[in-house]
Each structure stands twice: as C-alpha cells, then as structure tokens.
C-alpha cells in the first residue's frame, strides 16, 4: 500500500498510548458514536415522537373543550414526558459529538501544554471517560427520573451527567493551566504536529471553512428573519387553539396541525444551521489527523470526498423536509451515514498507522 506519510517525524508526534493518541482515537469514536446515535434517533424516534406530541396536544384541546380540567392535567404530564424523551435524546447526540470535537481540539493543543506526560495521559483518559458518561447520563434522565434520588428535582442520571460535565471542565482547566505554563516558557516535551500540505488537508480546511461560513450566514438569516416571526406565530396559534376549545366552534385540528408544521419548520431550520457548521468544524479538525491516516492517497481522497459530500447532503435535505417530507428526511439520513462511514474509514487508517508504528517500535510485543 502506498502512502506519502513520512514515518519518522510524524511518528514522533504519535507515541504509543500518548495523550494525543488517546484524544484522537477517543475523539473520532465519540463523534462517530454521537452521529450514529443521531441517525438512529432521526429514523426511529424523531417523527414518531412529534406525531405523538401533536396527538396529545389535540387531546388536550378536546379535553379543554369538554371542560375536563383533570384530563388536561394528565395529558400535559404525558406531553412533558414526550418532550423530555425528545430533548434528552437530542442532548445526548449533541453532547457526545461535541465532546468528540473537543477531544480532537485538545489533541491539537498537546504540543503547547506544558505538563508531565503521565498527567497528560491521565487527563486524556478522564476526558474521554467524561465524554462517554455525559451523554449516557443525559440519555438515562428520561428513564431513571427521580427514582431513589435524595433531591427534589435532580435524579441520579442528571447527577451522572453533571458530574461528567464537571470532569470535562476540570480537564479543560488543567489543559488551560498547561497552556499557560507553556506560554510562560515551560517546555511541553512534545513536537509540533507534522506540517502537511496534502490535497486532503487543503480540501478539508477550505471545505470546512466554507461550510462554517455558509452555516453562519444561514443562522444569521434565520435569527433575523424567522425567529421572532416563529415565536409570535406560536403564541398566536396556541391562543387560537384555546379560543377554539372554549368556544366549541371547532377548528382545533387545524390549529394543532399549524402548530406541528411551525414546530417542524423551526426544527429543520435550526438542524440545518447547526449541522452544516458542525460538519465544517469536523472537516477542519480531521484535516489535522490526515498525516496519521495510513491509507493510499486514493482511499484518503475517497473518505474526504465522502465526508464533504455527506456534510452538504444532510443539512440541505434536512431543509427540504419542509416541502418533500420523509423522502428528504431519508436522503438526509443517508448523508449522515456517509459522514459516519468516512469517519470510520479514517479511524481505520489511524489504527493502521498506530499499529504499524507500534510494530516497528516493539510496543505491540
């Protein structure tokens, strides 16, 4: 297999079980895991959950129209559960992916963190553990609730998530302290990342920057044009729904449908904005990992193209969901899958690289 990786300088920056290696492996695994979870959530939970919430809202409006306030309270407890189910799954997806991004980022900073190597490895391990436990805790909030909790509002799963979040903060603070020491003149004991001007790196860097810029412009447009209009429209629809319920003139079904459409419109626009930016950031982060991807140039370029292609397909077709419905949703999910496949392909390349290094250095024995 041909590769243009120059073994000696690059190998020096990727020592066996070094902090950087733990951060890079952990980061890619967290991102791929978070994205896979997001794809599964989008296919099996998201639309079903939205449909159930709409039905529950309609049931609440009908209960209100018949004057049954007890039923209204029970239905809203059910709606609260549905929203918590939805919210915690979105949060688990976002936090797992973002912890992966942070891990890759901190991997980049290792040459500028002046701390003893053992402490850096410990911090890397703690960060990856925190990055795994945080989304697990968030995911469990809906299922564990307040069972056996000594607190009135916070359950054990929330405590797990908060503790993992605190762990991430402690690691970040320690890394910041190491950076501060480096800036004051202490030696980090690590070489800088290999300088690489390959096609893969340039494409990922420029593609990533363009994705971020487009996402940022779209987000600004959404905040300026849509956000306030959506908020005002939501309030108006809810008031219309309540008026229709109290007057008994009908129209609740139309109002609930309008509410559902509005919620879907807001959700897809925010999802398109956040995903295009996150994929841009991911592309830029992965540009640094390219010297460690031990694959032929042809395969490296394939993974880069697949990653950028998926990064465009997902947000664009998420937006089209407003007009094309589930067909666009399915194409968007395929876009997400392309990004995951590209990530796993690159991870395999990094594993091959570390395996070859360890075999040469004798660590594998």
């Amino acid at each position, binding site marked *: 297999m041909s590769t243009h990786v120059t073994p000696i300088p690059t190998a020096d920056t990727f020592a066996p079980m070094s902090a950087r290696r733990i951060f890079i492996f952990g980061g890619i695994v967290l991102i791929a895991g978070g994205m896979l979870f997001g794809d599964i959530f989008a296919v099996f939970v998201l639309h079903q959950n939205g449909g159930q919430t709409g039905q529950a809202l309609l049931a609440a409006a009908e209960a209100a129209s018949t004057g049954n306030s007890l039923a209204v309270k029970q239905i809203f407890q059910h*709606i609260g559960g549905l929203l918590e189910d939805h919210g915690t799954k979105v949060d688990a997806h976002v936090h797992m992916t973002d912890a992966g991004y942070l891990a890759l980022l901190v991997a980049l900073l290792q040459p500028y963190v002046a701390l003893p190597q053992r402490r850096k490895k410990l911090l890397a391990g703690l960060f990856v553990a925190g990055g795994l436990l945080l989304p697990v805790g968030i995911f469990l909030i809906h299922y564990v609730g307040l069972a056996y909790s000594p607190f009135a509002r916070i359950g054990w799963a929330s405590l797990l998530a908060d503790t993992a979040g605190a762990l991430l903060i402690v690691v970040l603070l320690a890394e910041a302290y190491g950076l501060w020491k480096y800036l004051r003149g202490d030696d980090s004991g690590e070489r800088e990342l290999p300088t690489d001007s390959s096609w893969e790196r340039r494409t990922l860097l420029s593609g990533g*920057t363009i994705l971020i810029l487009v996402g940022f412009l779209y987000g600004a447009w959404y905040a300026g044009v849509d956000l306030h209009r959506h908020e005002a429209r939501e309030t108006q629809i809810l008031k219309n729904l309540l008026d229709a319920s109290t007057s008994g003139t009908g129209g609740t079904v139309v109002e609930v449908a309008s509410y559902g459409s509005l919620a879907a419109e807001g959700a897809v626009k925010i999802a398109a904005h956040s995903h295009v930016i996150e994929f841009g950031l991911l592309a830029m982060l992965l540009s640094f990992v390219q010297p460690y991807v031990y694959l032929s140039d042809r395969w490296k370029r394939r993974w880069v193209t697949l990653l950028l292609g998926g990064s465009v397909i997902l947000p664009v077709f998420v937006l089209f969901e407003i007009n094309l419905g589930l067909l666009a949703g399915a194409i968007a999910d395929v876009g997400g899958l392309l990004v995951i496949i590209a990530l796993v392909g690159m991870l395999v390349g990094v594993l091959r690289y570390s395996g070859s290094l360890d075999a040469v250095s004798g660590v594998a024995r």
Partner: protein
Amino acid sequence: MSSPRRLLVVGGLVLAVLGTLYGLHYAIFVEHQTLDRMGGSLAQAFVHAAERNTAEARGAVDEYASTKYNYVRQVDVHSHWIGLAMLLIVLGAVFDNVVLSKRGRMWVASALVTGSFVFPLGVILQTVSHGASYASALAILGTATVTIALAAIAWGFARGADQMTQIESSSMGSTL
C-alpha cells in the same frame, strides 16, 4: 506560536471554559425550573380554557411564550459560546495557512475573538429585557464581525491554496 495564533487559542479556551461553566450552572440551577415553568404555564392555559376562563388562559400562554423566549436564548448562548470557542482553537492551529499581511492577520484574529464573545452576549442580554434594541444591536454587531472575519479567513486559505498549487506546479516543472 505567533501572536494571532496565541490570541485565537487562548481566546478559544477562555470562551470554552466560560461556555461550559455557564452550561453547568444553567443545567444545575436554571434549566429544570425553567422547563417546569414552561410546561406548567402551557398546561395551566389549557386548564383555564377547560374552566372557560379565556383571559387567564391567554395570560398563561403569554407566560409560556416569555419563558420559552428566555429558554431558547439561554441554550443558544451555551451552544454558541462553546461552538465558537472550538472554531477559534481550530483556526488558531491552522492560522499560519491563512495568507494575509501580518497586521491583517492580527486584525482578523482580534475581530473573530471579539465577535465570538459579543454575539452570544447580545443574545443573552435579550433575556434581561425582551426585545431590547441594544441587545439585538450587540448580537448583530457580533454576528457581522464573525462573518466578515470568517470570510477573510476563507479568502486567506484560498490564497494559501493558490500559492501551494503554484509551488507544486513549479516543483513538478523543475523535476521534469
């Protein structure tokens, strides 16, 4: 490490810690209460409707809208500060590939750090007084600053890629 890179990396780390601390504080002390209040006021609106109390029902919807207005922006601040922090650190690592003048690089880095702090700050200030024009102006100013800085960086990357292509083609020519 050059001054613009240092500014971006340190600014990014400070913003990451700020965003994470804000998120932790929010998750422990604010979020559960806010969600309870939001759900409670919406449920209360329907209960009032069931009791044929239209004015109270409409009031509860307004309360729900007000709480949700704050909730959306509070969550946005957390995610945008951390997202922008990550962007600053990544750009700090590759800023040498941005082909701009020395002074231009410092200006772009400063604008990006300032905009990244100011834009979410403007968003969170909107919760202090709903629809406050100074808060919206701050958010718009921050957004414009970040957008212009990002565009300049994309242009700098493109110039760097052009130079790289020229170097590659000239080295291929000399090899031939």
